[in-house]
């Protein structure tokens, strides 16, 4: 990969100045070689495709009606590394307050268009999550504030700075407290800055607030190890993993990192036959649960008892103290046996924010001798530093008048705080309320001043997600609007003229540069840091702290009561991404629902209550939500996703779903998502959900093929007998075998590695300009995403096994779709790809019928510039995210995955111009590049030594519906479960 890193801001100057903020001066923003096309009227014959984004500017139509005049507007002064038509990559860091990821940002003509994982990072290891992929769209969100706001009106920084500074001074003199409420801050420099700010204004009290904190874990570690930290986990070292309501592959703590680790322990390539085993005890069917080898259903109130039962068995076997507990029906003996067999190579985690439970987990891990092996207490994870009591104190301070001001940075407590009513009321009389929100969110709406922060792609920062592992944020675009980084606001209010980038640089020069020895000049060091995006300071090996246990006690499980299990959704998370249409439309990997939250109930419970899918139920007599019947949900529990029901997210996110933050269980003083007792009442209403999949079992068809580890070791083709038979049968064909000259691109999906995290779906959407169609269209079965992740249950039972299967175009050599296109819009390429030529397509949709895999998508409407589809393609700003190499499809055109043809061509051209052969693994498809589990391989099938050929050369390889003799180029590898046959 040709990486171009960004060197200094000065060079960058002319490009993006003024960019989109004032449309009058748009031409200044344009880049040479780019066309500026004014589309007059809708139906001009050729002008529709490939919206370059820069479609503003007055251009006159001359001479003919058919071709508008296109202008080529060069820069006045071209920065050196900016070559129009050639992408630049900048290493930076994604951190939104919850999730961390080190990334590379691809910019074209100086606008970020795509996010890739940073392969130099030891934490995210080139992986990303769907949220990270979609975050680039937030940069081009229309609802972003265009400048500082005072009392709801746009204002300028000078006035606002003066006023806020004045008020801060007054409060300081009045000795009133000012609460600086931020999300978890993992940036050491920002922390230092805040400390300085607190010194400048001693009345400022800094608290960190997380919508979904993990304070129980910190507390438990404090008790057990006297360390107020979250330890770093090593799932790759564990042979047996036991999860208790911890969706570590989906949302828990560091899902990308853990997915990477998890997949490492379960890869069956190159003759490896060892595989870790995952037991999952959970209430809702989570993504992790759907990937578990054994899955147990527990009610939230049973968790403690089950854990204690497990502890007792282990303690008994290892000769430790046993505690009394209530008997629960869940049989944990097998788990205990397995754990004991792999002592020191096992890992037990719980996602429940309950200190008692975390203490038990610690005790079990300690019994199993896991500390120092799979759990590293010395490498603290700096995420999730929020403590619930802080905000309580702050609110009571506000109520009592002790607090005179509040500054909100990257938090939205008015939306996601359990006590939001109290907070709202308390905020009313506060003299100083400042928000740094990028959009006018619920909290910002109640503030006097909004000092909009930059998007992270416009910011400078550093981060220390894990002790000793640093990572850097650098701007990839000049601030689009008149926004200012939060840190810079603090600096201004401290009467400093320093820019935060200088501050950052100075801080690193002063603190971190002396710690290393490789570089002798700071410039080189700093350049390297920015270039790599990450920097690690090796920590000295320390021995793990000693475990100090205490008495464990589990409360009696409630019987008969309906318990609520709230969960964080994999797409829109805590609600931060509500206005991101890509994420809203991303099907939940388990329920396949989009655009809503809903109540998941188990089939048995639904039967008992007479509930049908899409029936509306009333929760606690107030909250009305539709029902989704979810096999795998524990009976007598219901699950609801958080993060929905925003009222001030923006046109996309407003009013989608219901806000259930109020239902969080705070009985222990901590925010516990699980275990709130609720009542459920059926109403006569129905509400339709937009599910992308309506049938959930495979009907005995050999679609996802699976086997168990023991059979696989005996016979690598086990579970794949169909394929063996297929190869044995004479595949008589009337036609000669397809022949290719030099390349036959093939892709293989390892179903054993794929967790269904949907990162590829969004990555593909971003790369290929896939349109968002909205809830109604999804409901009609018209979703446009080129990859869909099929999810099958082994049966529609209460605890089924789950299969995830990404299906993109399989590039069949005997493609049934190609045969039937009357206008030759589909043909087969010299390189084995089924080509679709959008501009030739007349939209008979015959190919869609004839595709057995149904991977073809039709543009049912014009999704660009259409007010009915008011998403990113309907806004000049939103269109800046489009990939200029990929055509934007017109209405009436069939589209599909083309194996990222643009990337293939790009890399081929690179090889040609460098006068060398193409390297294996050089071409990465969008789905493959950031896959956190490396489940996807892409390469030349004709090259027997290529990665993909070697991957295919195992007994596990098969083609989807191969009996049809469509000869797909894309293959799948059987799923292997590590369980008893």
């Amino acid at each position, binding site marked *: 990969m040709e990486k171009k890193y960004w060197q200094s801001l000065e060079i960058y100057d002319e490009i993006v100045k003024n960019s989109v903020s004032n449309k009058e001066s748009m031409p200044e923003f344009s880049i040479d070689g780019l066309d500026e096309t004014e589309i007059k009227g809708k139906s001009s014959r050729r002008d529709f495709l490939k919206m370059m984004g820069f479609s503003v500017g007055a251009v006159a139509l001359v001479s003919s009606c058919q071709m508008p005049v296109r202008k080529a507007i060069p820069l006045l002064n071209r920065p050196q590394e900016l070559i129009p038509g050639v992408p630049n990559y900048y290493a930076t860091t994604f951190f939104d307050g919850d999730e961390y990821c080190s990334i590379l940002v691809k910019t074209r003509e100086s606008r970020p268009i795509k996010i890739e994982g940073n392969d130099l990072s030891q934490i995210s290891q080139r992986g990303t999550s769907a949220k990270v992929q979609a975050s680039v769209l937030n940069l081009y969100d229309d609802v972003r504030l265009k400048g500082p706001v005072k009392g709801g009106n746009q204002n300028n920084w000078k006035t606002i700075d003066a006023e806020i500074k004045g008020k801060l001074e007054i409060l300081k003199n009045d000795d009133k407290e000012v609460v600086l409420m931020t999300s978890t801050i993992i940036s050491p420099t920002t922390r230092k800055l805040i400390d300085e700010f607190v010194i400048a204004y001693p009345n400022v009290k800094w608290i960190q607030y997380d919508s979904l904190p993990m304070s129980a874990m910190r507390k438990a570690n404090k008790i057990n190890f006297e360390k107020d930290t979250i330890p770093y986990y090593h799932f790759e070292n564990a042979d047996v993993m036991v999860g208790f309501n911890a969706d570590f592959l989906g949302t828990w703590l560091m899902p990308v990192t853990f997915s990477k680790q998890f997949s490492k322990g379960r890869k069956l390539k190159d003759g490896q036959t060892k595989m870790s085993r995952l037991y999952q005890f959970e209430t809702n069917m989570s993504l992790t649960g759907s990937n578990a080898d054994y899955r147990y259903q527990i009610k939230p109130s049973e968790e403690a008892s089950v854990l204690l039962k497990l502890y007792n068995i282990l303690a008994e076997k290892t000769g430790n103290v046993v505690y009394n507990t209530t008997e629960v029906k869940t049989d944990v003996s097998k788990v205990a046996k397995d754990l004991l067999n792999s002592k020191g190579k096992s890992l037990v985690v719980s996602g429940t924010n309950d200190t008692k439970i975390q203490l038990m987990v610690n005790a079990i891990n300690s019994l199993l001798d896991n500390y120092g092996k799979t759990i590293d207490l010395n490498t603290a994870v700096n995420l999730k530093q929020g403590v619930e009591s802080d905000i309580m104190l702050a609110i009571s301070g506000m109520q009592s008048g002790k607090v005179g001001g509040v500054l909100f940075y990257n938090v939205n407590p008015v939306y996601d705080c359990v006590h939001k009513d109290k907070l709202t009321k308390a905020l009313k009389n506060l003299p100083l309320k400042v928000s740094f929100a990028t959009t006018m969110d619920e909290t910002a709406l109640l503030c006097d001043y909004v000092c909009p922060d930059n998007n992270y792609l416009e910011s400078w920062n550093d981060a220390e997600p894990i002790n000793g592992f640093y990572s850097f944020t650098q701007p990839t675009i000049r601030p689009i609007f008149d926004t200012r980084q939060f840190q810079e606001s603090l600096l201004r209010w401290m009467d400093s003229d320093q820019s935060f980038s200088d501050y950052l640089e100075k801080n690193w020069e002063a603190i971190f540069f002396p710690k290393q020895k490789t570089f002798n000049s700071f410039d080189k060091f700093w350049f390297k840091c920015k270039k790599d995006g990450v920097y690690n300071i090796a920590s000295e090996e320390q021995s793990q702290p000693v475990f100090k246990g205490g008495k464990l006690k589990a409360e009696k499980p409630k019987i008969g009561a309906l318990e609520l299990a709230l969960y964080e959704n994999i797409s829109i998370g805590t609600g931060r991404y509500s206005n991101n249409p890509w994420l809203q439309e991303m099907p939940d990997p388990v329920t396949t629902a989009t655009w809503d939250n809903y109540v998941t109930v188990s089939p048995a419970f639904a039967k008992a209550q007479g509930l049908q899918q899409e029936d509306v139920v009333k929760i606690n007599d107030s909250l009305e939500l539709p029902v989704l019947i979810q096999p795998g949900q524990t009976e007598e529990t219901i699950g609801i996703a958080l993060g929905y029901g925003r009222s001030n997210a923006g046109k996309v996110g407003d009013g989608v779903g219901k806000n259930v933050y109020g239902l969080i269980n705070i009985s222990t003083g901590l925010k516990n998502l699980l275990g709130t007792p609720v009542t459920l009442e059926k109403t006569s209403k129905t509400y339709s959900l937009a599910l992308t999949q309506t049938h959930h079992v495979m009907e005995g068809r050999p679609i996802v093929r699976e086997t168990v580890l023991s059979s696989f070791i005996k016979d690598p083709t086990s579970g794949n007998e169909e394929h063996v038979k297929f190869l044995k049968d004479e595949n008589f064909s009337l036609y000669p075998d397809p022949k290719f000259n030099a390349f036959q691109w093939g892709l293989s999906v390892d179903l054993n590695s794929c967790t269904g995290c949907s990162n590829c779906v969004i990555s593909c959407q971003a790369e290929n300009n896939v349109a968002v169609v909205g809830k109604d269209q999804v409901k009609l079965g018209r979703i446009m995403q080129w990859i869909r992740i099929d999810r099958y249950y082994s049966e529609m039972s209460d605890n089924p096994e789950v299969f995830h299967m990404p299906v993109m175009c399989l590039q069949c050599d005997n493609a049934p779709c190609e045969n039937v296109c009357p206008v030759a819009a589909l043909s087969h390429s010299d390189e084995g790809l089924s080509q679709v030529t959008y501009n030739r397509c007349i939209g008979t949709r015959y190919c869609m019928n004839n595709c057995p895999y149904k991977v073809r998508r*039709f543009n049912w409407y*014009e999704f660009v510039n259409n007010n009915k589809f008011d998403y990113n393609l309907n806004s000049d700003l939103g269109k800046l995210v489009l990939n200029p190499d990929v055509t934007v499809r017109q209405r009436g055109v069939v589209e599909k995955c083309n194996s990222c043809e643009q990337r293939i061509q790009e890399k081929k051209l690179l090889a040609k111009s460098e006068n060398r052969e193409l390297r294996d693994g050089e071409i990465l498809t969008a789905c493959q590049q950031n896959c956190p589990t490396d489940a996807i391989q892409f390469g030349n099938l004709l090259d027997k030594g290529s990665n993909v050929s070697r991957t295919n050369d195992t007994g596990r390889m098969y083609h989807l519906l191969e009996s049809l003799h469509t000869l797909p180029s894309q293959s799948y590898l059987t799923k292997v479960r590590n369980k008893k046959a």
Partner: protein
Amino acid sequence: MYNIKVRGVLIEGNKGYHDITQDVTNPLLSKTTPKWWWIASFVTTSMLIWGIWGFYNTIAVGTGTWGLNNSVSWGFAIINFVWWIGIGHAGTAFSIFLLVLHQRWRTSINRAAEAMTIFAVMAAGMFPMIHMGRIWDGFFVFPYPNTRGPLWDNFNSPLFWDVTAISTYLTASFLFWYVGMIPDFASIRERTVSIVKKKIYGILSLGWLGSARGWLRFESAALLMGGLTAPLVVSVHSIVAMDFAAGIVPGWHSTIFPPFFVVGAIFSGFAMVLTLMIIVRKVYKYEEYVTQRHLDAIARVLTFVSLIMGVAYISEIFVAWYSNSPYEMYVFFKNRAIGDYEFEFWAMITCNAIIPQLFWFKKIRKNITMVFIISIFINIGMWFERFVIVVTSLSKTWLPSTWHSYTPTLTEVAIFVGTLGFFIMGILMFLRFLPMMAISELKGVLKETSIVKENTKSHEE
């Protein structure tokens, strides 16, 4: 040779040659248009206008206004297309098959049946067009020389075959129809007193004389064109069937489809002829031309064809079982018989295979009302057959994850109703302005097939 003793009289009521001319040409030469015609035209025009709204909506807003989805991407449009094409087979089947087979009882019906063909095929032709996502680029389907390489079409595509077959069929049957009308236009030309009509029909008659040599060439040309078009009747619907049979979709991919479709087409076409002729003979009082015996003959044909349909259904199901392919079996046993669209499936079986069996009873064949009702049922049944084939197959194909059901929208219904309006409008125009029975042919069979009284009734002049 026609045997009156066996078959009965073809033209009843002691008609003379002049009577025939008069009876057929009077409606179109009369200055006043009957009231019912205006009412019917009003109704059909409103249907047409609604249809035009459907067209407009589709073209202006997008195919998204239909109920289709990524799995079921063919729906109402293709159903109606096949249905109309099927109906469009009646005329040609009627006139050409029977012409080639020298079945003289066709004479009083063939013209109307051919007109029906033309309008039905035109109505059918609208669907593939409106069905396209980008109708404005529809000309891409023709392999015309271009500056793109030149880039030609995919001649493997059944849709391309469709385009050629249907345009050929429309052209051929239109020309055949028109050629058949030339002598009749001459009759009208000579009979009318209106100058305008004389001019118009004069142009249409191309200067027909009716000389012996002219008749010889005419007969020869007509027979040749008919003979050439006859295989089209088979090929067109076979090709339409190949749209499905060449597809990989379970429930489509079946070798029985071409003959099955052709038979189905004739079935629905004859039923539509029956429906139409019962109305026409009633309204125009043509009971003497379209006799009870005509209807009886059609009903018998329908009974036979219905049996073929039944066998086809059974053999389809049998083959699905015999193939042992889980996908095929699922389509027939689960999806069609007891699936989401079971009503449509059983409606198809009932209307097509069971109800026409009532024609075994002479009493029912004699009862015009019953015949009419059954013919309507057959039309409906055949529509359901296309629905079952198109929708049920597509809604549940290979991968269960992609299963999705389909419900048509108002726009689709509007387009269907619009084509119905168009069709009826066409028929109304035909009845009003064109000779609805082949005058010369009727005259040709008059003597042989009727007990003609002394030829004294000829008009005095």
